[in-house]
């Protein structure tokens, strides 16, 4: 049925290993997203086979309003555009956009809400990074090696 | 008529004698035309016409010049004004000059370029045509 282990002989994902060089991160979101991508794919050195730029955009929306007007729930909506190019010819090898959200409650103390928000933001970056990796694994066998 | 003349010196008289000087002259006996070539200069009153080659065509009884056909780069000067072109045909009788090919007309500070100019030396009227470009220099008041 066409399935094969991504990191197996014909899966193609092996070409990505430590061969993806990320552009420098901007802000905490970018740092956390790049950190997770390097955790999964290793870090590409100066002569890496692929260059990739991933740009996260996060907005927040309030939910869960009580009859007394309190907002008890927040959601962080995250989008990440990824663009993988050949560092020499700048040809576009893979590109796209992934999106997801994470939520946190605001019914606790101020420091509980602060910790919950910062953790929700970190989790959002992890989810977006994993979704980018999924797209790369699926496209890997089509990448030039 | 009293209108001051557009092009050239005022009151140009086309009946004045025409002097022609050139490096060489060749006369064609059977049709009675004369071909001047090499630094040809034609002077009539205040008008002066220079060209590389001028063919002079006389009227039937060869009593007067009917037409001067200048070519190879022509310069026509009259009073303060001047005109250049590839070719110029001067019908002496009527005073009409037809200049064609990269015509450049300069009148005092104003200049104009055109494909063709129909000039009447007596009235001074000049008709330029074919995407005419004129530079109007404002008078320094």
């Amino acid at each position, binding site marked *: 049925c066409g*399935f*094969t*282990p*991504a*990191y197996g002989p014909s899966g193609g994902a092996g070409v990505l290993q430590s061969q993806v060089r990320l552009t*420098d*991160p901007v*802000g905490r979101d970018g740092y956390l997203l790049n950190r997770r991508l390097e*955790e999964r794919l290793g870090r590409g050195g100066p002569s890496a086979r692929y260059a990739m730029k991933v740009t996260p955009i996060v907005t927040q929306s309030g*939910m*869960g*309003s009580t*009859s*007394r007007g309190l*907002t*008890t*729930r927040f*959601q962080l909506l995250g989008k990440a555009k990824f663009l993988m190019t050949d560092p020499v010819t700048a040809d576009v090898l*893979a590109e796209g956009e992934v*999106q*997801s*959200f*994470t939520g946190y*409650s605001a*019914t606790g*103390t*101020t*420091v*509980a*809400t*602060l910790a*919950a928000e910062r*953790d929700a933001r970190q*989790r*959002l970056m992890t989810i977006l990074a994993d*979704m980018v990796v*999924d797209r790369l*694994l*699926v*496209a890997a*066998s089509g990448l030039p090696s | 008529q009293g*209108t001051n*003349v*557009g*092009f050239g010196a005022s009151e140009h008289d086309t009946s004045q004698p025409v002097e022609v000087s050139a490096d060489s002259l060749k006369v064609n006996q059977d049709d009675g035309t004369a071909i001047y070539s090499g630094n040809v200069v034609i002077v009539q009153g205040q008008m002066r016409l220079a060209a590389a080659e001028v063919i002079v065509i006389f009227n039937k009884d060869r009593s007067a010049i009917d037409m001067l056909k200048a070519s190879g780069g022509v310069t026509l000067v009259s009073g303060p004004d001047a005109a250049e072109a590839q070719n110029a045909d001067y019908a002496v009788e009527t005073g009409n000059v037809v200049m064609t090919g990269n015509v450049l*007309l300069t*009148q005092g500070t*104003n200049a104009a370029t*055109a494909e063709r100019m129909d000039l009447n030396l007596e009235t*001074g009227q*000049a*008709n*330029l045509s*074919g*995407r005419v*470009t*004129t*530079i*109007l220099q*404002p008078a320094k008041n």
Partner: protein
Amino acid sequence: QTENQAALLVADRVLVESDNRLIAEGKVEAFQDGVRLTASRIVYDRDADSLTIEGPIRLSDSNGNLLIADSADLDIELRNGLLRGARLVLDEQLQLASVQARRVEGRYTQMSKVAITSCQVCGEDTPLWQIRARNVVHDEEAKQIYIDEAQLRILDVPVFYLPHLRLPDPTLTRARGFLIPEILSSTLLGTGVRMPYFVPLGDHADITFAPYLSPVTRTIEARYRHAFRTGTVSFDTAISRDTVQRDTTRAYLFGEGAFDLRNDFKLTFDIEAVNDRSYLSDYNYSDKDRLDSELRIERVRPDEYITGALIHYESLRANESNATLPTIVGNVEYERRFLPAIGGELRYDVTAHSHFRYSETDVDGRDVTRLNAGVTYLNRWTLPAGIRAGFTGSVWADHVNTVQDSTADAMITQLTPQAAVEVRWPWVRNDGQGGGMLLEPVAQIGWTGGTRPNIANDESTRVELDEANLLSLSRFPAPDRRERGWVGAAGIRWMRYAPAGWSAGLTLGRIWRDTADAEFSRSSGLMGETSDWLLAMHFTGANGLDLVARGLLDNAGRFAKAEIRGVWDYKRLGLEASYVLQSADPAVARNRALSEWTMDATYQLAENWTGSTLWRYDIVDNRLDRAGVGLDYSNECIDVGFSVSRRFASSINIEPTTNYGLTVALKGFSTGGSAKEYRRTCR
């Protein structure tokens, strides 16, 4: 006076009639120092240095203004003269038509008996709006339009008269003057008018005053913005005296700024202060119920993250007292990453945190300071058959100091070792052009040593489970709590992506632990020895539908928590809806379940009409929380927006209020928005 430049004239035929007259005919064009004129015939009188021009005349200059006329007498520099049957078109949108226009010094255009509009005028029908004026002067350099005896007409019916009126021409940005007035009406503040007035302060700063007057309130709002070389600041404030709170002055100040410091550090600050708890909600300035003022310095590099912040909180919630809430918080985080030669990643983390409560009473007035340092090593390998194995090992040193809490140890220091092995086995099918399918079983076994110290849980009381921390060594958001003992997790991830067709993803997972952790409450989904099932999905359809959902399914098959977000842009409909469900959980101060959906839709009713609506409905209380409807008419020359919205929530600080809004913006002036997008054509 600049020295006069020669004018260039191009035409099909030029008749040099006399020394003094030159006549140009046939597609005549004249160019003069950035000004271009086209006409059918031009007569040049050399003595008078004037041009008599026969139309149709089009005179356009370098900054996009266009003057159309039937005939004209201009000087040779096209700077002075009279145009008959003139129409001045500014920036391709605003038209000033008049019987006669006089051009002065190439800068001013004086027009008499003028009609000004930016509406498309087809044939003889009257424009939607126009300003009739006795005379008008357009100053090209100052980009201003001065109008005398202005009469605003809607569909040719005079509705407004002003002896003198000055309006900025469309190309003028940062012009001092009135912006679009707004008519605001709410059941609390009555019907009032808000008249913003913009004042530029040099090139880098500006201030906008907005008096807002209604039978109930006299308010002055102001926004100050300043751009520096290395950063920007912006402050919003308002001061009011109203009959809602008699003889007190109510005011708020919100400010924010960001600056670039030396070697890549960035400083940001944000100030939020108000002098009365219900002011922000009464005037709809903000629906925040907790104000946080923060000063933060941060630096991000590929291998290093540094941040330090000082935060002050002020709660506006009726049921909270600021004395027993941590209102002063300090946070420092430092992380450094290395890639050692043996492979993998070595990570050093140091965090310091402190929060302070004003109250001195035992437990309620607790102040906590903690210092946490950790070293982590992580690596991943590819095993035969494409299995991806990962190892994470770390040691954390925690030092926590608690004051004014007899139930907790005053000071603890603890070392916590952690280790985890993760296994992923991704299978893929490549369908070409980057599309295909992924199936990835994942599993992790982790161990954390040490027993939980007797310290208060101030920061980790709200725990979430999602795809990100299904495989994780600790799901608590802050280091004041860590998961202990053996914890196992397993899941399956599926994803399909088709560049042309639909794309979707699914994640299913569960967590097992050797001993249940009492800190996890029911709605966290992590209670007991086996967690709830984590179910997460996303779907992107080709027809503009985008759905993301996540839920925690308990053993009885009921959702303890569910969140769904959907966006559907399809032809003329733009719909955004979200649903959130959270079961009742007193441990997290949620005595009643939360089940609420919100819907936000816009629909293009007709070519220029857009309807919009917003609803938020609480299913558990069977209560409409807020509702709003809006109607907007927009064409190439006018933008009319009407909206009504109501918030039903009420408490001692919040009044249920209905807000009505009406804005009318005449397009074509630089304040009214550009009229270029909506170009109608005459049929």
